[in-house]
């Protein structure tokens, strides 16, 4: 639990630093995870789904994002705190292409106590600038998820999924 509180502090600190930027976006999205590797074995199939909300700030060609993602898998519901850093690779009047790297500490929501969960992801994102204040985006990339505690106490939990995301962004 101490580890999780520490992570929350990092996320809050990241959010405060985002607030120092000039251009903010509030992003809400849905993520779908077709799975490739399940518990260290090649086992394709649908893995899970999630909903996310995040605050993003743009500075020159760089984008920083912090937020919350809630989803489910065959092991129950989970909660992740994504921290993303990205770079806009290509920019035109209506389209942005960017790439992101993310780390996502979080929790598997179990009783009587949760398990620590961790995910890392690389993604490419295409954003359509519908207006100056609104974007629609599509992203895709591999995500690695593990829970060392669950793996040690119950059964191996290591997955590689493909994250297919759709999201909308509102300029704040």
């Amino acid at each position, binding site marked *: 639990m101490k580890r999780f509180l520490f992570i929350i502090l990092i996320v809050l600190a990241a959010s405060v630093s985002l607030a120092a930027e000039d251009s903010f976006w509030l992003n809400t999205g849905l993520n779908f995870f077709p799975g490739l590797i399940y518990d260290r074995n090649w086992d394709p199939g649908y893995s899970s789904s999630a909903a996310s909300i995040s605050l993003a700030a743009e500075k020159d060609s760089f984008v920083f994002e912090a937020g919350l993602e809630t989803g489910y898998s065959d092991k*129950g519901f989970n909660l992740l705190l994504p921290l993303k850093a990205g770079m806009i690779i290509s920019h035109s009047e209506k389209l942005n292409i960017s790439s992101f790297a993310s780390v996502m500490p979080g929790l598997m929501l179990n009783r009587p106590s949760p398990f620590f969960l961790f995910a890392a992801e690389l993604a490419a994102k295409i954003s359509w600038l519908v207006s100056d204040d609104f974007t629609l985006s599509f992203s895709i990339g591999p995500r690695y998820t593990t829970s060392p505690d669950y793996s040690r106490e119950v059964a191996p939990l290591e997955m590689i999924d493909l994250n297919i995301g759709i999201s909308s962004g509102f300029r704040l």
Partner: protein
Amino acid sequence: MKNNKFRRRLYRQTILILILSIFIFAGCSYRPTFSPADIDADVTILETRQAIEIAPINAASSNTGLLFYPGGLVDSRVYTELLADFTETAKLITVILKMPANLAIFDIDAGLSVITDYPEITDWIIAGHSLGGSMAAATVSENPDVYSGLIFMDSYPADGDSLKTWPGNVLTLFSSIEKVNEPERMQKTLDLIPPATWLTDASRLYPSADSNYTVIHQIDGGSHSYFGTYGPQDGDYTPTVSRADFHEEVIDYMLEFFTENGWI
């Protein structure tokens, strides 16, 4: 002006996140209180994305399979201890299904896609604990020709899923002091299942095989979570017997049900 707009949006989103978080935390699943790797039954346990398969070691292949629907918001692995012991003795294949978010209501017919992987099995007996039992009854109601028997564990069918005329036989096991599903509610659903006969340790006389039937047995001193290896579950009473003794009685009545029906 822009700052006010920003604050308003931020407050709205924060409230939304808090509400969502409350719902999510209410949906915490019970975790196993053991590791399936520690099971010492003479079985192999193979876990895939869809299910956990338990198979006896050094046993002739059986034409009977047990398909298990886990209870709501319970990690499916909590049932491996009980079902590994059953599988070892019954010498058949047992498949515990995994459910999205551990809620069988999201994939009621999950069993249909799994049983196609076992073409050698001709008799599928479906079982479920709590919500899993109700969803098992729902899939039997929709696919009556697929399953030969049904086992409820602290469970009963939902109102719309009458199995009164279903040709298969039913075993209902419930823990005497469980509060979560309330035995009184189970009693009220007797008109949804084939005609019932109560079995006790003193009288274990099965009905004649001329027509479909339900046999019901109450296990004294057990709690709702005793069907798995987890808990205690919120709202449950304190059990007065050990989990090992409870499991032994569950397995005993399951074996008898399988034997009476000629499945093992």
